[in-house]
């Protein structure tokens, strides 16, 4: 069951980040928008003019106290939240960084670079670069940190997927990869699985303890650009270039729902924090709007 409620933007929305009470959206305009998710009509509560040439990634920590956004010009902004209002604390220059992920405690920022490096910066120590993993030089399109902070996963344009241990800085195992560009990687809430997807239109699930590929979910007919796990890890959401949104049951490995409200690319998709029994999620992209759906869980 879907209840799409739509909030419109002026241009493509490239990234969403959620906190307990808010959703942050990054778009090709010069402003980040903050909408409240506690009210029924998701009112706009703040506009953060920050990225002159547009913003492609925004991420938040677990408590929703810190956010990091990165613009097309390469500028990285660090934000803090007080009384549900965000303010900019810092602008830093991190060379060639593209996709970013923030640790649950907000202390560490992980990022990919155009030449395939995976780096970690300590935001508690003046953004000191504490890790620099080199891969085969293919563009790092996407990145995620496991909820316990022990693992970093990255996806690359040449189809490779890597997992690094943040403690040792090593790759515990090599993953089989996806042949075509990977556009999104996401750890499950318990950290048991890593999901990866992209231009091959298949979602691959890896077991993070062995590196084995344990499932592949097929059904999308266009490039998959974004993945998001439900808070319990029971469901995985995927959004694709043709505007399709799919909900997958991890138990049965089946697609349990498909939404196709738009034919325009879904750049970002995110579950909202669970309220009561129902779960909701948001999608955004080339339709220039955020659509909110309520999903009756249990299929």
């Amino acid at each position, binding site marked *: 069951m879907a209840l799409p409620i739509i909030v419109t933007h002026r241009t493509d929305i*490239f990234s969403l980040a959620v906190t307990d009470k808010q959703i942050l959206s990054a778009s090709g305009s*010069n402003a980040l928008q903050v909408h409240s998710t506690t009210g029924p009509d998701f009112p706009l509560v703040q506009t953060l003019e920050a990225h002159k040439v547009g913003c*492609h990634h925004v991420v938040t920590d677990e408590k929703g106290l810190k956010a990091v956004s990165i613009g*097309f*010009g390469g500028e990285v902004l660090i934000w803090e939240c007080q009384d549900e209002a965000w303010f900019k604390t810092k602008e830093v220059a991190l060379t060639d960084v593209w996709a970013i992920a923030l640790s649950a405690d907000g202390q560490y920022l992980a990022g990919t670079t155009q030449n395939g490096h995976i780096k970690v910066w300590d935001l508690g120590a003046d953004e000191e670069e504490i890790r620099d993993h080199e891969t085969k030089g293919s563009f790092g399109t996407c990145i995620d940190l496991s909820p316990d902070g022990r693992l970093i996963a990255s996806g690359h344009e040449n189809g490779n997927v890597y997992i690094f241990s943040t403690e040792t800085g090593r790759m515990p195992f090599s993953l089989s990869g996806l042949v*075509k560009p990977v556009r999104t990687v996401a750890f499950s809430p318990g950290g048991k699985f890593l999901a990866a997807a992209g*231009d091959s239109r298949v979602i691959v699930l890896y077991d993070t303890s062995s590196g084995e590929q344990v499932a592949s979910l097929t059904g999308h007919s266009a*490039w998959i650009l974004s993945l998001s796990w439900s808070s319990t890890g029971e469901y995985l959401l995927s959004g694709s270039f*043709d505007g399709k949104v799919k909900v997958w049951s991890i138990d049965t490995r089946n697609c349990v729902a498909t939404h196709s409200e738009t034919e325009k690319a879904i750049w970002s998709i995110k579950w909202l924090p669970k309220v009561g029994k129902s779960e909701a999620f948001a999608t955004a992209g*080339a339709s220039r709007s955020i659509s909110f759906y309520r999903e009756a869980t249990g299929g």
Partner: protein
Amino acid sequence: MDFPLGQDIQHAEPGLRVERSQAAVRQYIEETLARLIDEVCIAEDEGQPSITIKKRPVNANINFCVNPSTGALETDDRGTKITYTWPGKNAYEAWRFSITLRVLAAISEAFYAGLVISKRDIYYSDPAVFESQQVVNTLVDDFAYTIGVSRSDLNVEAAAKGLVTGFYQVTTTTGERIDARLLTNDCLIPRVQDISRLDVSDVDWVLILEKEAVFRRLSRSNFHTRARAGMGLIITGKGYPDLGTRAFVRKIYDLLRSSNPPPFYALVDSDPDGIAIMSMYKYGSMAHASENKSLVIPCLQWLGLRTSDLVENAENGDELMSLTARDRKKIVAMLSRNPVLTVDGPEAEWRVELQRMMMLNMKAETEIKYERDGGLEGWIDWEMERRAGV
């Protein structure tokens, strides 16, 4: 010395414009040379021969904007005056003085003889002194800017670069007539100054192409007479257009815009250079900002290519190419500097398309359409009809 600035010249009627431009060039040359001779004739060691020119605004530090009334990229910056004196403070200034004088002498010679010379001719008259073609190009453009005329008013032309094929007839000032309507071969774009009469009244559409290869293909298949949208004109500036190509397209636009004008389309590659080329036709260039208002094509429509369209239809995406590091830098520079592409600028769709290229890290060339259903021609037919609302 006050320069007879060409502010009014650019807006005057064509016949009057040429007359005023010529008067301005003549006055500048005569005054400058007279002053030089005066200085040289002063007693030894006291004369200070010098030449003052205005450098065109360079784009790094100054603000450009899109003038809503002309649709052209313009700047309030009036450039910087520079005076080169002989013998000057050092060898560099002496060299600058002498090459500036050499270029002015070449312009003067061509102007009084009524001949057209190329920037290449000037450079090759003494490559050892000029050191590079770029030095000559910059000086010629700065002289035009100083006098307030266009480069062609100085009788200096770059070698003709653009190509045209299509349903037009032209009569040159020397009386030569070209009826291109049923010809299959293409022509070098004629100099606008050499055209006494151009007939494009039967043209239903104008298509500007980035690439010569695409132009050759459409020209070989007689697309200008076989398109479903009717009889057309196909033009290419072979990449970034020269002033001659832009002036020719603008002449067509001026001839057609009074009546119910046909659509003008741009077909460029889906990459940062493609968008920059289209922007140059539609809004002008930062290097020749003072001439933009008489060269822009405000009605130009973007026919394609869009990476996002290609992805939707891509069987496997293999024909799409990754952006290079230069492409990504170029996109960021364009988004940061070109006022056409700002968040409140006139081309929101170009802006978002550049951002999508960055997101996907992909670009595509026009040739990709050769192998698709209907081929390039079928696709252009479809896109033109869609835009015309058929």
